Structures are given as structure tokens and as C-alpha cells.
């Protein structure tokens, strides 16, 4: 099976159409970054508190908001998370409610607000940790365990926590649920001292202002270093202009990806930055494959003009470019669809980036080479071709 048999498309002839498309996308993203959604930063970068809560019944956002308001958290952001059947909600607080003196104050206030009408003097079995349970059991000693109390109650506490978190997916609907994993005497003791609220905390992220700022700086630096690394490598392997063209194409990909996140108002988290950095490397792949072919053809087809050579090279590698991008796209799409909510931003960045990256190596990087060459010719430079392959890079082919 073959998708492309000797394609002969005049890519460079249509470059203005594609450049125009790029321009629309970049400017659209840029406008959104500047004037509309700005860059929606995830809690990793903006700092703040995020608590992901699972409820036993479908949560009522208005009721939760009322609880938060009562607790003084006026600016809490409340949004449903994942599939509706999961009964999960994200509650997010801004940076200003997260002080480094008491980093977890916001989290504690949220938990307190949610467990508003808890019975007096009873602990919430849905929101106690393993250590607390072990300690409780040891102080009550319902089994009169004697010398091996620590070990025995440790195992029992672990069994209860595992049952709640793994079998019951994080929330129990009543204290009696644990009857299947604990002896009757223990259950009795739990019935007296515990209750179950209608929610459980699945995860908590609290980022203080220092870390947020530091991560912002690091993310920008990492992206720049990565582009710089590419530039140097391409300079070393090809010529400076190849490196510049490739890096401009990559920057274009990064800009459009971030712009799309802004347009769609999807938060940029640390893993999204990881995806963008991967894209920098990946988008470079396609560009290099095309450049390699250009260099090879420059040697073989000395009579033809640069435009013709570049066109030919793109066409020759088109099948490979489309195939590999398509296959990587398949895997990334699988990640986007099946990978779950946590990786949502990450896989979205890859989905967008791979499309843009493939497009830019053909329509941005290669035309830049030609444009550079043409401008040199106009300025009166004698050599109209790019320097061909250096001898040290020569491919040795044994027949």
C-alpha cells in the first residue's frame, strides 16, 4: 500500500497561502494572549490551592459555592471535573489565599467548609489518613492487642484505607461499609467515634508564590535553552541559516500552540510545558528530514534552481513526513482520548503541536531557506546555491 506515489506538488509556489494561514493562527493566538484570555496559567505557575473532591452523590455547585462563601472563600473557583458520573469537583483558590506562613490553610478551610454539618466530636472516616487511624486504634485498643498492637492496628488501618480508596473509589457512604474488612469489635468502636461525610479528597495541590514564580522562569528558560540547543546543533550539522530557519519554524509552533491554549482557555501546567518542549524536538525532526534531503539534492542536481530543489526534496520526503506525523498523531490521539483528565492538557498540546509542527517544516522552514537565498542573490552575491554537504558528514554507501 502506498499513499503518495511520486507526488509533485508546487509547495513553494503556494507559500503565500500557507504563510497567510500561519499568520492568521499566530496573530489570532497572540491577540488572545494579549487581550482576551491571556496565558491561562495552571496552579503550578500561578500559585494557589486546588482541591479535587469526590462526592458520594452528584455534587451541587451552588450548594458548594454557598458553603465556600460562608467560610469566607469568596473567590473560590468551582468546576466539575472529568465525567459527570465520577461526581468530582475541583475547588481552586487564588494565590492570595495561599500564604507561605500557613501553606495549607486554604485546603483546611475548604475541608472544614464542606463538612459543615458534621456530628459533634466525631471524626470523618472519608477524610482521615492511615496514620490517624492507626493512632486512633492504638489509643482505643478494641482488640486488646497487647505487645503487637502497633503492627496489628497498622495492618488494620491499612486495610480500611485500602478498602475506602481502592475498592470504594475514595468515599464510603456509611461507617458500616467497612464491616467486611474489620472485626466486629473494631466496627463498634468506629460506629461510636466516626461518621462519614458525603465527600473525600482525591488530591491536593498547593503551590506557594515562590515556587510558582520560579517555575514560570524555569519554563521560559527551558524552552529558550531548548531552542538554542537546536540552533547550535543544526549550525554544527548543516549551516547557520538552516538552524535559524528550523528554530524560527519551531518558535512558530510553540507560539501557535500556546496561542491555541489561550484561545481555548485551557490551563498551561507544568506537563503542558513538558509537551511543548517535546514538540520543539519533534517538530525539528521533520525539518531535519527535509533539510537532509535538500542537502543531498544540492549535490546531485547542480543545474536546477534552489526553488526546484527544495520543492523536489519536500515532495520526496512527503510520504515519510505525513506517515510519521500521522503515526505519532495516532498515539497522541489515543493519549488524548483514553489517557484521562490528568494528562488532558499534555495530550492536547501534543495533538495541536504535531499538526502545526508537520505543517511548519514544510511551509515555514523550507521557504525561509529559499527566501534567504533569493535575498542574497538580489544583494549581488555570486553563489546562488547553499553550501553543499561538508565532507565529514558524507554518507558512506557500500553497494
Amino acid at each position, binding site marked *: *500500500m502506498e499513499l503518495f506515489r511520486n507526488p509533485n506538488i508546487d509547495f513553494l509556489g503556494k507559500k503565500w497561502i500557507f504563510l497567510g494561514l500561519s499568520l492568521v493562527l499566530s496573530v489570532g493566538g497572540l491577540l488572545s494572549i494579549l487581550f482576551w484570555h491571556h496565558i491561562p496559567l495552571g496552579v503550578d505557575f500561578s500559585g494557589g490551592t486546588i482541591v479535587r473532591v469526590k462526592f458520594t452523590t452528584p455534587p451541587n455547585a451552588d450548594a458548594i459555592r454557598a458553603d465556600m462563601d460562608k467560610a469566607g472563600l469568596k473567590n473560590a473557583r468551582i468546576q466539575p471535573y472529568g465525567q459527570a458520573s465520577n461526581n468530582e469537583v475541583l475547588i481552586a483558590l487564588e494565590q492570595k489565599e495561599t500564604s*507561605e506562613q500557613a*501553606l*495549607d490553610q486554604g485546603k483546611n478551610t475548604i475541608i472544614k467548609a464542606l463538612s459543615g454539618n458534621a456530628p459533634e466530636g466525631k471524626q470523618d472516616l472519608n477524610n482521615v489518613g*492511615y*496514620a490517624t487511624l492507626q493512632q486512633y486504634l492504638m*489509643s482505643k485498643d478494641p482488640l486488646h492487642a497487647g505487645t503487637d498492637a502497633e503492627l496489628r492496628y497498622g495492618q488494620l488501618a491499612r486495610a480500611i*484505607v*485500602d478498602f475506602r480508596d*481502592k475498592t470504594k*473509589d*475514595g468515599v464510603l457512604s456509611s461507617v458500616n461499609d467497612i464491616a467486611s474488612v474489620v472485626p466486629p469489635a473494631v466496627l463498634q468502636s468506629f460506629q461510636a467515634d466516626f461518621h462519614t461525610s458525603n465527600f*473525600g*479528597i*482525591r*488530591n*491536593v*495541590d498547593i503551590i506557594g508564590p515562590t*515556587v510558582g514564580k*520560579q517555575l514560570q522562569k*524555569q519554563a521560559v*528558560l*527551558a524552552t529558550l535553552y*531548548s531552542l538554542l*540547543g*537546536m540552533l547550535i*546543533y543544526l549550525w554544527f*550539522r548543516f549551516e547557520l541559516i538552516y538552524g535559524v530557519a528550523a528554530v524560527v519554524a519551531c518558535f512558530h509552533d510553540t507560539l501557535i500552540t500556546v496561542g491555541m491554549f489561550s484561545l481555548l482557555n485551557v490551563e498551561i501546567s*507544568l*506537563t503542558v*510545558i*513538558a509537551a511543548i*518542549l*517535546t514538540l520543539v*524536538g519533534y517538530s*525539528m525532526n521533520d525539518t*531535519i*528530514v527535509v533539510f*537532509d534531503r535538500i542537502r543531498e539534492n544540492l549535490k546531485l542536481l547542480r543545474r536546477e534552481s534552489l526553488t526546484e530543489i527544495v520543492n523536489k526534496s519536500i515532495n520526496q*520526503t512527503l510520504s*515519510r513526513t505525513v*506517515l*510519521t506525523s500521522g*503515526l*505519532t498523531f495516532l*498515539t*497522541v*490521539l*489515543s*493519549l488524548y*482520548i483514553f*489517557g*484521562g483528565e*490528568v*494528562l488532558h492538557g*499534555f495530550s492536547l498540546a501534543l495533538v495541536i503541536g504535531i499538526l502545526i509542527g508537520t505543517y511548519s517544516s514544510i511551509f515555514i522552514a523550507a521557504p525561509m531557506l529559499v527566501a534567504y537565498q533569493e535575498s542574497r542573490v538580489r544583494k549581488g552575491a555570486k553563489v546562488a546555491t547553499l553550501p553543499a554537504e561538508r565532507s565529514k558528514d558524507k*554518507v558512506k*554507501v*557500500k*553497494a
Partner: protein
Amino acid sequence: MKKNITWKILLIVGTLLIFLWGIFLGTDPAASIQAIKEKGLIAGIQQNIHLGLDLKGGTHLILQVKVNDAVKSDSQQVAERLKDYLRNANINYTDVTIEDSENHPELISLKGIAPESTGDLRNIVTERLSDYNLTSGANNTFTLTMKPQTLTALKQNAVTQAIETIRNRIDQLGVSEPVIQEHGLGEYQILVQLPGVDDPARVKDIMQSTAMLEIRQAIDNGTPYPSEQAALQAHNGVLPPDTEILKGRVERRDSNGESNDAYYILTKSSAVSGRDLRDARPGQNQTGQPSVNFNLTRDGGNRFYSFTSAHVNDYLAVVLDGKVREVASIREPIRDTGEISGGMNEQQSKDLAMILRSGALPAGIKYLQESTVGPSLGADSIRQGVRAAIYGMLAVMIFMFVYYRFAGINANLGLFLNLVILLGFLGFTGATLTLPGIAGLILTVGMGVDSNVLIFERIREELRNGKTPPSAVEQGFGHAWLTIIDTHVTTIVSAAILFLFGTGPVKGFAVTLTFGLLANLFTAVFVSRVIFDSILNRHQRGEALSI
């Protein structure tokens, strides 16, 4: 023309076996076999491939050491020493202070030195305080500045010491496989990862306690004052020399049941400190209240004995972390035992004893980041990640088979081996697999197949140009090789930068991506070539290549 590929096949099979060993048996085969027997295959694999906190649940903390605390306490000691030296050398001065102890604790300023003593002062500093530079200012003032390399070493030392202390404390709490290490680039931060800890409040308190224990003399028979002003007024606004006012930790309750703060006047210097502790145990005092009993070292005991002998019927105060825990009268000379009690329950007394045993933190710490992943969330993530990986891989494999027929099977074998090597590598090195790491695994599949496509497309092209199958294969691999190196280098460069800048989950991603691509060089170029060669060896002249 047949090629001898026997040794190459042996090499490939050997590699496969080694990395399968890595996945199932890892570096500790006995433990893995036991885990497989007791809890099944998955548990055995988990014994070798360590899951990140985001997959198995736990708490991730980043904390910062307030290194200026350590510098401050060092400077304070130096200031005291300097006063001694000046006194011994009969140099008069009006003041030796650390003026900005918050921001510049490394600066000690000296005031009122007579001009004729300047030479002597310089000699003292060069001979005895060689870690400081002396500069002179207006009106006979001088500034001692800690030398930059000493300052850096001191700060770094505080971080190292803090890591040690925190490790001691966490080890005693029985958290399994904790990670405690320096974090970031010179910001005095420490990363703490606690697998399985879903409620970090207590651990955080225990880690944060500096546990600076001091025993000082309490002035005014240990009288508590309701406010600092009241304490000052008791002395007509001027405190006795070398004393200071400290707040009490235990709140006093007055007759209305309202709690009031208590302030005490204490000497600045301490008779003994936490460094003189030999042991600390939880216990009970005479009234049955939970307490912490401690023993002093021989040296500390001697000092405590001479202090208590000299102050019978005076009062002493136990100060913990700058707050007065307890005030008691000295009835008789005490040599090496003591007790802290009041205001704590049984658990707190156990924790305090443990903290005191583990030693003091050289400086305070503050928490910068805290994230907790519940175990149910981790299990969900694994399920979804593995599902996405399997579907993605199946899609790629089916496509490769449909598009390239036999050569597609060749590529798929390579992909499979690629994954085995990657997972085996994780098993051998103990590198952590995180959720983004699983994503890296999926990406490796997508990007790894890129090399195959490059080579196959080139072979097809050569075949179209009329080359024989063996020569087309030769040319295809030859031409694609450099391109493959280029594409791998660029991706690995970005992964390396991610590794340097990233934390936890992102680092896991960089690791799997890098090693996936390195393994891909072997599988897509070497293994795939060997499979082609073995086919070509059996080929009849003129037979077409299935590609």
C-alpha cells in the same frame, strides 16, 4: 551473496533476555520472585519498576531552608567572641551588633572604636576572625563582612544538615522509601516525597520543628508578665544587662477562662542547649501529665551541674524554638537529667522526644509547595495510562502491518523490543515511572516508528529506481542513518533540558523518552536490519521484497 548474521541474532536474543530479566527480576531477583509468588506478576514487576507518587499516591513537599537563620546564629557567636577579644585586648567599644539580622546577617557592625586602636582591631580580625573582612566607615565605625566563600559554605552546610535531620525524623516515622534531597538550582530548597502518606499534617509539623532546645535562667523568679510592656515596666523600662523578653508557649488562662499570653525575662545566654542532649524519651511527670525526659552528655551535664549549683533557689526556663515551654525553680544542683512537661498530649510528647533525639535543624524551614495524591487517583491514572498506551500501540502496529506488509511486522517486532528494553532499563536503574512517563512511553512508540518509516520509504524509493532488493536495503539503511541520528539528537536534547529543569512527574517523562529513543536506535537500525538480512539470505534472485 549471503551474510553471516548468527552472532547478530545471538546479540539480539541476549539483549531481549537481559532486559526481560530487568522487568521481571530486576536488581534483586530473590525479592521479585517472592513478590510474584505471593502477590502475582504485577506485584513482581512493581518491585522493580518504581512508580512515581502520582501513580501510587503520597505526598510531595518542597521546602526552603531559611539559611539566613544559620548565618545569623553564626554571626551572633562571632559577635560574642569579638567582644571577648576586644575586652582582653583592652580595646574600648560602644557597640557590637548585627544591624539587619533579617536580610544581612553576615554583617557585624562595630561602633566607637578609638582611632589609636584600629591597628589592634585589624590584627585581631586577621588573626582570629579570618573568615571576615574588615572595612571602616565614618565616625570610627567598622563593618565585619563574612567572606563570600565562607557565607556560601555556611548556607550550603545548613541545607545539608537540614536534609540529614529531616531524614532522621522521617526514618523514625516509618515512612517507606522516602525521597529527601536538595532541589532546584541554588535556592536552598529541599524536595521531600513521602509515598503512601495521604495526610501530611503531622509529618509536616515534625519536619518543621527546629527543635532548638535551650535551658536559660529566668529572671524575677520566673514571673510571667501579661505583655512585653508589663515586663519592661517591672524594671522601670530598662532590662537587666544580657537579658531579653521571650513569649511563653503555654497560654495562661485567667479567671474568666480567657487565654492570655505570658512573657518572661530570661538571660540571653543558655546554660545548656539541644547539642548537649544524649537522649530524650516520652514519659510522665509526677502529676501524670505526658512529659519528655532527657539526659545530657557528660560535658553538658558538667556545665548544667555548675549552673544549677550556682543558682539554687533561682528559676530556670526550658526554651524550645524561641518560646518558653516551662519555668521551674532549682531546688538542688542537677547533673544530667531534665524534664519538659505541660501543654502536650501523649502523641505530642512522643513526637517531641523523637524530634529532640533527631537533633536540631540548623535553620527554620518553610513550606513552598505541597501536593497530595490519594491512592485511588493513582490507580485510576495507571489504568487510563496503560489503556491509552495499549490502544495507541495497537493502532500503530496495525497501520504498519497494513501499509508495509512484511516489513511492517519487522517494525512491530522492533517496537516490541524497544518497549522491553525501555521497561527493563527502568527495572535495572530504579528510575521512576510517572504518569507523564507512561505518556513518554506512548510517544516513544510513535516517534520510534519514525525511524522505520524513514528507512522503509527510502528502500521503496531505491526499489522504484530499479535497485535489487539487497542493494535497496543497503542504500535505504545507509541514507537514513544520519537523518535518524539527527532526529534522535534533537529530541534527546529537549528531553535532557526537561530533565534538568523538571521535577517529579516531568522528570519521569524525560527519562522514559530519552531511553526509549536510545533503545530505538538499536531496534530500528540494528535489529530491523538483521531481520531484513535474514529474509534476504533466504530470498531467490529476482524475488520481490514485501515492503
